[in-house]
């Protein structure tokens, strides 16, 4: 892609999200989301391949539906209450509709089914943008409306953690696994949103860090399915050693970073006197853990047989930059001792 066009697209991508961040008016928020969607579609289809075209189309349809629903809901809101202010949502009907529209936008189950298919059609960089940056604007809106009834978000959250775990179990394609992992993580964020929005933010932040490093690891290894991961030990031995920790951190095992949001979310749920919900959610995390564990098995904990020439690529100098990966992977593994500081940062 022409660098000038790429720059314009990335700028528009940033602009759309920023407009949504800044807006207090539903029309502006909707506009930001639309700019954002329209900017990423050319990025999705930059490789002329049937799969990426399919992904772009599916993404467009899902996002357009969500945006139309959002617009409809905000117009309804204006009609019912006479104002467009995001922070002043009071009527349950538009609030629920907007929640569902945003759930479709980020891919919360049961509105998730576009996400794995779209992600599978993208290259890893665009996939990274889709599973990190594209979640920010909808979450900014979700955090601002105060839901009148927590049941919708709880149901979305529980379904997502379940579907995210179950869906990932029989996948061999890394991008689909990451999509389901994303669904499960978003479920945790949606679950705690009605009770303690700062924890949603914390979970989102740790999810961004962990997903960033996972995508960067896969990109460094040019890996798109589990089999390719199996020979990564011959390309990048040290990253291969660290990746199980990263994957288990995604799975939420103490003492890694991924445990922090889960711990706090469970604590808040027990404080809200919802111990059964807390236990159930905690146990659904085991489903996701299984496929992370399977990835670590094939990547690091077993040695894939390779011919003699195949074992030496790590000796060659590579041009790829690894500083972002180094930073994000250390944060994705070892942030738990900083939990008090993180909470202080994110609590208003």
């Amino acid at each position, binding site marked *: 892609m022409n660098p000038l066009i790429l720059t314009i697209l990335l700028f528009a991508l940033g602009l759309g999200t920023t407009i949504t961040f800044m807006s207090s008016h539903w029309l502006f928020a909707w506009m930001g989301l639309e700019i954002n969607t329209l900017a990423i579609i050319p990025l999705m289809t930059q490789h002329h391949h049937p799969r990426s075209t399919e992904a772009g189309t599916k993404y467009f349809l899902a996002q357009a539906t969500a945006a139309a629903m959002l617009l409809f809901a905000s117009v309804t809101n204006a009609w019912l209450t006479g104002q467009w202010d995001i922070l002043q949502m009071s009527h349950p009907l538009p609030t629920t509709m907007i929640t569902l529209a945003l759930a479709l936008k980020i891919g919360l189950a049961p509105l998730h089914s576009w996400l794995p298919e779209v992600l599978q059609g993208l290259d890893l960089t665009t996939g990274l943008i889709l599973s990190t940056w594209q979640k920010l604007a909808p979450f900014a809106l979700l955090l601002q409306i105060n839901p009148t009834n927590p049941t919708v978000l709880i149901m979305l959250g529980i379904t997502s953690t379940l579907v995210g775990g179950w869906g990932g179990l029989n996948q061999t394609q890394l991008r689909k696994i990451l999509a389901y992992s994303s669904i499960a993580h978003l479920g945790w964020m949606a679950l705690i949103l009605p009770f303690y929005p700062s924890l949603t933010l914390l979970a989102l932040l740790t999810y961004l860090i962990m997903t960033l490093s996972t995508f960067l690891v896969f990109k460094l290894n040019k890996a798109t399915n589990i089999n390719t991961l199996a020979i990564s030990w011959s390309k990048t031995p040290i990253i291969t050693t660290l990746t199980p*920790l990263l994957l288990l951190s995604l799975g939420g095992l103490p*003492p*890694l970073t991924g445990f922090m949001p889960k711990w706090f979310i469970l*604590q808040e749920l027990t404080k809200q006197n919802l*111990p059964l919900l807390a*236990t159930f959610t905690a146990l659904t995390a085991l489903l996701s*853990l299984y496929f992370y*564990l399977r990835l670590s*098995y094939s990547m690091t904990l*077993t040695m894939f047989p390779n011919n003699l020439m195949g074992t030496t690529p790590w000796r060659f100098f590579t041009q790829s930059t690894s500083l972002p990966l180094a930073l994000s992977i250390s944060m994705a593994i070892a942030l738990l001792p900083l939990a008090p500081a993180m909470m202080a940062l994110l609590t208003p």
Partner: protein
Amino acid sequence: MLKILLPTLMLVPTIWVTPAKWLWPTTLAHSFLIALTSFSWLKNFSETGWMSLNKYMATDALSTPLLVLTCWLLPLMILASQNHTSAEPINRQRMYITLLTSLQFFLILAFSATEIIMFYVMFEATLIPTLIIITRWGNQTERLNAGTYFLFYTLAGSLPLLVALLLLQNNTGTLSLLTIQFSDPILLSTYADKIWWAGCLIAFLVKMPLYGVHLWLPKAHVEAPIAGSMILAAVLLKLGGYGMLRMMTVLEPLTKELSYPFIILALWGIIMTGSICLRQTDLKSLIAYSSVSHMGLVAGGILIQTPWGFTGALILMIAHGLTSSALFCLANTNYERTHSRTMILARGMQMVLPLMTTWWFIASLANLALPPLPNLMGELMIITSLFNWSWWTIALTGTGTLITAGYSLYMFLMTQRGPIPLHITAIEPSHSREHLLIFLHLLPLLLLILKPELIWGWTF
């Protein structure tokens, strides 16, 4: 505390900067020095029972023996792993010792934590190094299955524990072990409270493991490399017992009614796993099932909540830790020579490795609890307190003891006596490293006969 923790952390740079030639001697010496320093914890002259207090950690009569056992095990694991990792590249050997060290680090933090959530985090943190040790350094492909079983059994038990602990924290306002026994008794009457009680204990019962949720243990033991088996049998299972001992004070009024099924399972498990041992062909599997059987006794002793039961449980945990670890080492010396765990393929070892037979003999006797070894002291205290609770338990514990003697004898006869098969006449003689290894297991066991109050816990 930091006198032990910082040297343990500094083992990591030692491991990575030592020249390859000196890797094993240096790490051994370093970890052995840590183990010797850790003995200073045993001299507990504090009136409150708590020693070496700092902000997050402390030791008391209950955790000290387990802490010292943890520190003692690291040099032994290094000593035991030297041969079977010698064929690997040097960096992988360094990684292996680093994992063992990290395990010791997490275990020290777990046993000395003064906050239950801190204990929980460290309890879980030990899973990752153990998982990697089992699935990366195990020998067969079934090791992946074993790793999955290990991880998921433990986590399925311990995630409800986390929720239960957080509920407790909301109720009492603190989870500090220093003050929790002084907090007001919680009102426990509803069904939800009963489920909460189960949530608090099941994680530890899975870790112990209780009969019925023990299936992960034989798999993990059979597939793990020697150091993994050693630490698993000697210390990791004891995390379960330790956690139960700590939680018992909080769960006070409910345990009396609710513990019956668990006591029955524990005692029934002694018989069942003992019987499985009697018909076992796989040496490591036999020792693993023997661990389950002994841990059943420990679980029974803790669940009836008498001072004798608690003390017996702690004594048996320490004694069994040393004994089963020694047995795994002995099994490994056979495995490294014959490359098979099947007992029938390596009989009559007395003819080829006569001194090893002595060690096998002492370790088997310790396993079947011969007087005056601490094993007997622990079993006797638990059996007595169980008998005091109900006469009928003697039928189960007595039979269990008999079966234990039976399979220990079976194990000894099967490996050491009998005709020597032709295919193993040319095996290499035992190294002094191996003799030292077993000796260092049995020495503390024998010395504890002279001063058993070190592991008597709260009773002393």
